[in-house]
Structure formats: C-alpha cells, structure tokens
C-alpha cells in the first residue's frame, strides 16, 4: 500500500504541468481548509463551494507560473482565496472566470450534498502537517 505523498505543495504545483494527478494531491490537502475559510465568511455552503472551486481553478491556472520558493504554497493559495472573496464581496456575486477559462462544468448540488458540505466546513481545519507546507 502506498503511503502519503511526501512532496511539498510547491513541488506538487511545479509538477502539475506534466503530472495532473499532482494537483489532485494538492487539492486534497487543502480543500477542507479553503472551504471552511469561505464558509465562515459567506452566507451559505453553496457560495462557499463556488468560491472554493474558483480558488482552485485559479490555482491550477497559476501553477504553470508558480516558481519554486521557500515560503509554503499554502500562503499563496490563501492569497488567491482572499482575492476571490474580496472580488465576490465587491461585485455581489462569485466570478467564474478561471473555471470558464479551464472549461470546467458548473455543479448542481443535491440537498444531501449541501448537508455534506456544511459538515465538512464545520469540521474545521485539520492540523498542518510538518513537511514544509
């Protein structure tokens, strides 16, 4: 059985251009924290998911220009998240620029999905692991 991937977030982002699965690992490490971040600041789980999706789509686009750097990539990701939040608050709606640019389909949520999102967001941020993230 394979253990957890030991690459840092920065290494995963740099690898994404030739190894799309690397971005999935990056996503799984941070999606709950990003969702919780938005859920604490917006009125519904659906809007929080919308912002989360736009944040990761922008991160995927940005990964092609991501230079290896000593700072944890988590800070870079949350910088994107703050910008998306400010844009949404300023415009009164969540933009979908990055998702459209990547050709991503919009998601329709069932009631069960919304409940599941609320539970994930309420569970909060897992403790950070100590491998340079």
């Amino acid at each position, binding site marked *: 059985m394979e253990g957890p991937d030991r690459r840092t977030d920065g290494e995963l982002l740099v690898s994404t251009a030739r190894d799309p699965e690397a971005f999935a690992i990056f996503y799984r490490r941070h999606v709950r924290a990003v969702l919780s971040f938005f859920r604490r600041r917006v009125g519904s789980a659906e809007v929080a*998911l919308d912002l989360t999706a736009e944040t990761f*789509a922008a991160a995927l686009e940005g990964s092609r220009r991501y230079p290896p750097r000593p700072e944890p990539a988590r800070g870079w990701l949350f910088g994107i998240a703050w910008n998306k939040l400010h844009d949404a608050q300023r415009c009164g709606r969540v933009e979908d620029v990055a998702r459209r640019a990547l*050709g*991503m389909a919009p998601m*329709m949520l069932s009631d069960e999905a919304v409940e599941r999102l609320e539970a994930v967001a309420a569970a909060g941020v897992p403790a950070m692991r100590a491998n340079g993230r």
Partner: protein
Amino acid sequence: MTDDPLAALERELVDAARRLAAGGHRRSPRVGAIVSALLALGTLVLAVLSIVLAHH
C-alpha cells in the same frame, strides 16, 4: 446533481489539468471571439489606411 461535491470538484480539476498538460492553455470561447474581432478590426483599419495613403 452531485452528492459528493468535493469529489466532483476534484474530478473537474484533474480533467482540466489533463487538458492543460495535453494542449496548453485553453482560452475561453468569449475571449477567443473578442481576440478574433479585434484582429479583424485591425486588419480593416490597415486596409482603409492603405487605400487612403495610396490615393495621396
């Protein structure tokens, strides 16, 4: 409708990452249309300028 939105989002992102890896950046259709229109307009302006300059 999806019951597991985080898993669905992961699939969408990995598919998008594969498309990027396979063919580079995918420009949105709207951006493509705007760029094409600007290029056509630029060509038209150049053609008009050429005609005007040729008659002076």
